């Protein structure tokens, strides 16, 4: 068998179930991988090795007895450091919570554990998932940002330090780092995964998402995470299908809508050339790719997002901020200070625009299996002072439509490029099936290219 760390999440889970791979062997392989890369990448903030290995040994003994906790039995997963983990330090990337040990798990973490996953450790995040960067570097070129805010999760998955990780997206914090690091990012429909026990950035924009190396792995992680949670008022009672099973019966995406206007104008030439090449490949493989127009409310989506994010971040942080503003880093501080000044009527108008845009997009999406755009306006920018621009993901964080980011090539500097697929609300199974099809057509598994560098 290949080195365990090279396996995909699906392959790891399957090999453990067939007793071809021991959870202890897998955990040790991932820890060795971390030892090789961590000093350069800085993806982890907490890495409790002894408890991980002890839990892996328990999983191993259970597997010997034919007992499996769930579909992810013995598979270690990375968790962004804004998710509460019982007894494990949870800093939110902030000095304020530098010694915070929650006494309960966030719902997402609890559900992963119930499915048999092991918590490998906590991955680096920007401060409270906003824009003040983590120290993490891009695995493809350490002088470049890995993106944010799920910086450590993306870098850890891209370097195969773990097969999958939890992330969150309020603006572009799952798909952007996934794109910059050359892996798959999934942001499901708002309300699909509970946000309970996750530090909020903006209550009505926050999504829990996953970062993996393949679409199949994203579906496997979504399965246990999705579903209603009494503790989260935004979580949905929509039925949760078996995403993995539906993926295996993937049908060809018949119609793909290429979003041109805003995206072409704001893309580098190299990014737009890449998306046209991808669209050409999909078309030649049998998909019907046609350009589509965005509805009128698109003109104000970035502004509405900015207002909502500022006000809601200010609402969450107000008391902590008043107590000690100097503990906040500059970008989040400015966001909070600005949010505290915005009139309520302007905030509610932004929420109305959010509703209008969602309804208008629902109508547009009836005509397509998915929409297609570049995932980011450029490849990962140089420097670690910024995590890049979230503009290309913001519309879908505002509307709540599910999105998948897929690697689509390398630019002239050898940095990853990616496409963004957008689906209808609650339509993750259809979107993932389309993404799987696109993945097979593109055949650009950047994580395998990374192994051979």
């Amino acid at each position, binding site marked *: 068998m290949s080195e365990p760390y090279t396996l995909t999440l699906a392959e790891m889970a399957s090999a453990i179930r067939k007793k071809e791979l021991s959870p202890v062997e897998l955990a040790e392989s991932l820890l060795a991988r971390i030892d090789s890369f961590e000093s350069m990448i800085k993806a982890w903030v907490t890495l409790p090795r002894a408890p991980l290995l002890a839990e892996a040994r328990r999983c191993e003994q259970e597997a010997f007895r034919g007992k499996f906790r769930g579909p992810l039995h013995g598979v270690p997963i990375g968790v962004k450091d804004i998710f509460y983990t019982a007894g494990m330090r949870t800093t939110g990337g902030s000095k304020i919570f530098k010694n915070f040990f929650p006494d309960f798990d966030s719902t997402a973490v609890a559900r992963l554990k119930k499915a048999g996953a092991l918590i490998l450790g906590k991955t680096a995040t920007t401060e409270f998932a906003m824009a003040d960067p983590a120290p993490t570097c891009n695995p493809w070129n350490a002088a470049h940002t890995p993106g944010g805010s799920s910086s450590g999760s993306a870098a850890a998955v891209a370097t195969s330090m773990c097969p999958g990780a939890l992330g969150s997206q309020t603006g572009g914090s799952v798909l952007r780092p996934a794109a910059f690091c050359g892996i798959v990012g999934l942001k499901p429909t708002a309300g699909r995964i509970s946000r309970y026990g996750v530090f909020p950035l903006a209550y*009505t924009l926050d999504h829990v998402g996953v970062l993996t190396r393949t679409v199949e792995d994203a579906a496997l992680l979504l399965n246990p995470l999705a579903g209603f949670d009494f503790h989260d008022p935004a979580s949905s009672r929509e039925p949760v299908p078996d995403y993995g099973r539906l993926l295996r019966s993937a049908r060809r995406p018949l119609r793909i809508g290429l979003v041109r206007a805003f995206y072409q104008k704001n893309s580098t030439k190299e990014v737009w050339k890449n998306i046209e090449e991808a669209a050409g490949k999909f078309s030649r493989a049998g998909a019907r790719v046609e350009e589509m127009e965005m509805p009128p409310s698109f003109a104000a989506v970035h502004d509405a997002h900015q*207002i909502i994010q500022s006000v809601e971040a200010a609402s969450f942080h107000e008391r902590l901020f008043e107590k000690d503003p100097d503990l906040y880093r500059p970008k989040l501080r400015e966001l909070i200070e*600005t949010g505290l000044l915005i009139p309520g009527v*302007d905030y509610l*108008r932004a929420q109305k625009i959010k509703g209008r845009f969602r309804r208008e997009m629902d109508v547009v999406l009836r005509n397509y299996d998915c929409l297609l755009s570049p995932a980011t306006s450029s490849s990962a920018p140089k420097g670690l002072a910024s995590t890049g621009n979230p503009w290309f993901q913001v519309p879908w964080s505002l509307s709540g439509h599910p999105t998948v980011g897929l690697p689509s090539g390398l630019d002239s500097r050898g940095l990853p490029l990616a496409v963004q697929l957008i689906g209808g609300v609650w339509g993750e199974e259809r979107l993932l099936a389309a993404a799987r099809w696109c993945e097979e057509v593109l055949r650009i598994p950047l994580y395998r290219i990374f192994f051979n560098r």
Partner: protein
Amino acid sequence: MENTRCFEREPVKKETEAQIRQRLKESAGRRYGDSRAKKMLPALRATTKAILKTRAQDLALEDEPAFFIRSTRTR
């Protein structure tokens, strides 16, 4: 006759970009001090533009704030 002027209805004027910016700047000054408010000017300009652009959207009376996506199933 002059007294009737106070019953004439003045149209409600829309705030201009400069007025919104000034109002935000003054609020920032009162809350965080003038020195901090001055440093916040680029952010206040961006917020002013965002407010203006959202105000320019033609929303219907029936449009409601959309905090969360409504499930198609009742709770």
